[in-house]
């Protein structure tokens, strides 16, 4: 069995509540940092652990905290990004629902490190019941002296507030989140300035993902060295993966970042293989925004190496033959799935969620969705495929926030790897309404180019 750090105590009866959590060693990290460590010590520990942001971009967390401006007399804020709305990603939800005190504990430690006396959890509006769970956990923590003024006599004050969003995926983008938290329309800000300098209410701010902040707890408890030993290279520690699609056992798994993609899909410890004895066709390994890969490129890189569940290995080959670990939303497609339909469905999502601020994303996402709908429903033309590719390439890189890229990459990758399926949809329009393209050659081993 692989080592669990975040979900270690998940099986304990009543772990959702304070008593069970505390009895099993909860809040020890708060005691440790407030009694024996300075805020900079904590930041250094996190730096040494190699922890990288679990919200999608994988930016080193300790380094992010180090960038925070610290002008005298200006408050600093820590914000926990719990807006989790990316199709395929549902790991933060699981964590908050089942072991909310782990997040609260991580938040107190992290708030201490960055010097935030007022910390917010910005949570996806649709997670209404989790707001209650978190508020209950905060109340319990406060009643037991872990929040409030002068915590454990250390002189450190901290309050945590939960703020639900109003149903917009874009509010997960950190600057849109800040706007929304300030009570405005959730439009991403134009950067620079970055939140580390001017964030919430123009004060220095750190935004981190739920899983990132929870991982601080085991880092403090077990020490950064112990944490850094898990995983491969710069992919240190454990990662939550929310696996869904055509697998035998969908769910949230904590993996050590040293297993192969193949093991993750086929071993009984994790996904348990493709459901109903079907064959693997494709996979989106990191949430809807990352490039889709056909089976042959998923299990092995273009160089013929085994693909691992790490940041580096999943992105090996760049956008031409690789993908990304992203937020860990692992979506598996079997041979009965239609890539055109899947691409349409993602496009529909991005068209609906664009904030509409910048022209390429506002106009381009709607346009792509309409073309994909035509192809999907048998009204497409061959030249539409090139048009789609051209539109996505004009959005990518030319927008205010990374949403534009996130809307373009899935379309680009689908056309790049599954072009014959798109063409078949157009040339066999009628048949395509009755049956799917099937596995075709997408699982056949690729010839490795001699180096």
């Amino acid at each position, binding site marked *: 069995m692989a080592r669990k750090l975040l979900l270690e105590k998940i099986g304990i009866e009543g772990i959702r509540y304070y008593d069970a959590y505390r009895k099993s060693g909860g809040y020890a990290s708060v005691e440790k940092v407030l009694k024996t460590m300075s805020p900079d010590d904590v930041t250094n520990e996190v730096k040494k652990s190699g922890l990288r942001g679990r919200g999608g971009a994988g930016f080193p967390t300790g380094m992010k905290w180090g960038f925070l401006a610290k002008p005298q007399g200006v408050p600093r804020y820590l914000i926990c990004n719990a807006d989790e709305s990316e199709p395929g990603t549902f790991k933060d939800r699981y964590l908050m629902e089942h072991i909310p005190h782990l997040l609260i504990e991580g938040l107190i430690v992290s708030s201490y490190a960055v010097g935030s006396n007022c910390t917010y959890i910005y949570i996806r509006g649709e997670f209404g019941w989790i707001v209650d769970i978190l508020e209950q956990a905060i109340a319990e923590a406060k009643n037991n002296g872990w929040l409030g003024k002068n915590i454990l006599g250390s002189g450190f004050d901290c309050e945590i507030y939960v703020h639900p969003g109003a149903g917009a995926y874009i509010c997960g983008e950190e600057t849109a989140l800040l706007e929304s938290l300030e009570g405005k329309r959730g439009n991403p800000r134009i950067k620079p300035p970055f939140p580390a300098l001017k964030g919430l209410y123009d004060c220095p701010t750190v935004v981190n993902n739920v899983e990132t902040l929870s991982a601080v707890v085991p880092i403090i408890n077990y020490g950064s060295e112990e944490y850094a030993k898990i995983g491969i290279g710069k992919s240190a520690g454990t990662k939550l993966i929310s696996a869904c699609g055509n697998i035998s056992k969908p769910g949230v798994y904590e993996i050590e970042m040293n297993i192969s993609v193949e093991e993750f899909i086929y071993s009984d410890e994790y996904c348990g293989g493709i459901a109903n004895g079907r064959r693997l066709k494709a996979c989106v390994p990191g949430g809807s925004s990352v490039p889709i890969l056909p089976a042959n490129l998923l299990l092995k890189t273009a160089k013929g190496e085994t693909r691992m569940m790490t940041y580096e290995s999943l992105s090996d080959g760049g956008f031409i033959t690789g993908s990304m670990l992203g937020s860990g939303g692992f979506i598996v497609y079997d041979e009965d799935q239609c890539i055109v339909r899947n691409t349409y469905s993602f496009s529909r999502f991005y068209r609906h969620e664009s904030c509409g601020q*910048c*022209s*390429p994303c*506002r*106009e381009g996402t*709607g346009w792509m969705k309409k073309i994909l709908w035509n192809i999907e429903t048998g009204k497409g033309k061959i030249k539409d495929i090139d048009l789609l590719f051209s539109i996505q390439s004009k959005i990518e890189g030319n927008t205010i926030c990374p949403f534009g890229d996130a809307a373009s990459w899935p379309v680009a990758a689908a056309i790049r790897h599954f072009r014959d399926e798109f063409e078949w949809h157009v040339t066999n329009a009628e048949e395509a309404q009755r049956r799917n393209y099937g596995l075709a050659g997408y699982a056949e081993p690729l010839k490795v180019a001699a180096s």
Partner: protein
Amino acid sequence: MAEEKKLVKVTIDNLTVEVEPGTTILEAARQIGGDIVPPTMCYYSTLKGSGGKCRTCLVKVAQGSAADPRPMPKLVASCRTAVMDGMVVENITNPAVLETRKAVTEFLLINHPLDCPVCDQAGECDLQDLSYGHGVDTSRLEFKKRTFELENLGPYIQLHMTRCIMCYRCVYVADQLTEQRLHGVLDRGDECRISTYISKAIDNDFSGNMIDVCPVGALTDRTFRFKNRVWFTKPMDAHRECSKCSGNVRLWMRGEEVFRVTGRKDQWNEVHDFICNECRFEKKKVSDWVIEGPTKVHRHSVISANKYQNLKTPKEFLPEVMGGRDPKMLMNIHKVSGVNDPEIDLSKIPGPATSKIFDKEES
């Protein structure tokens, strides 16, 4: 003594200029002037926070600064990017920039109704200019365009949302010039629109300025609606004593009639002195104003057509280059066609003009 600020040097399309620290690439380019100034659809120098949205002003930063010469990985919005000392910028000298501008123009046009023939903004529309400069003459869109219902924002302003390009300038006007926030943005993505929500009347002394800042014909002056084409009217700078604003305006006249009053736009189509609604909508008599004189209009502007200010007839050059011969290459159209007869004032003819009216003796 104020400390002398050290100027920073920036090179845009091989032209170097020294500007104050904190200046944006766009403002630096405007100081140089000419073709190398990126087009802007959302930036407005007198509205705080504007810019960054339309992406027409994207440029390539080929060298970040003298200290850190690395290029910036993506194109940047010149209206929101500050210059650094030693920065090297490429605008019209970089094909990728022009290619992207073409794409942005296409995006701005795919849902635009292209109803210029019936739009009051035609002739002074930034989107028209952008399309002439960077658009292509065919459309790759094969879908119905997005449309909205016409909406009146109070007695003076009409919102034609279908034409809107979501530059947010009017939202900043509502935020910054008027006392209370009257109008904002609803919905998301390609469905987003500006609105006062349930057509709340805008009755604020400065609300009319959103007409001037609107780069397209989405917000138009109801008192001028369909009254005339801008190129038939003649702009005059004028002023009056006003207790609410500076009273410095531009009158758009035809003969002795004032058709429209607007703020004074500078060469970048930006108003610096915002005017009040009384001056704009209620003072439509020449006697209300002290007229300063005709506005200088750039000679390439359609508005300058038919304005015979400082007109210079080019020198006859044919006899010179053709060794004294003087062939008639241009003929006087009035001599061969009766239809364009300057003697006949079309507006005085009752009913439609027919060929009979133009019949005349062969001369």
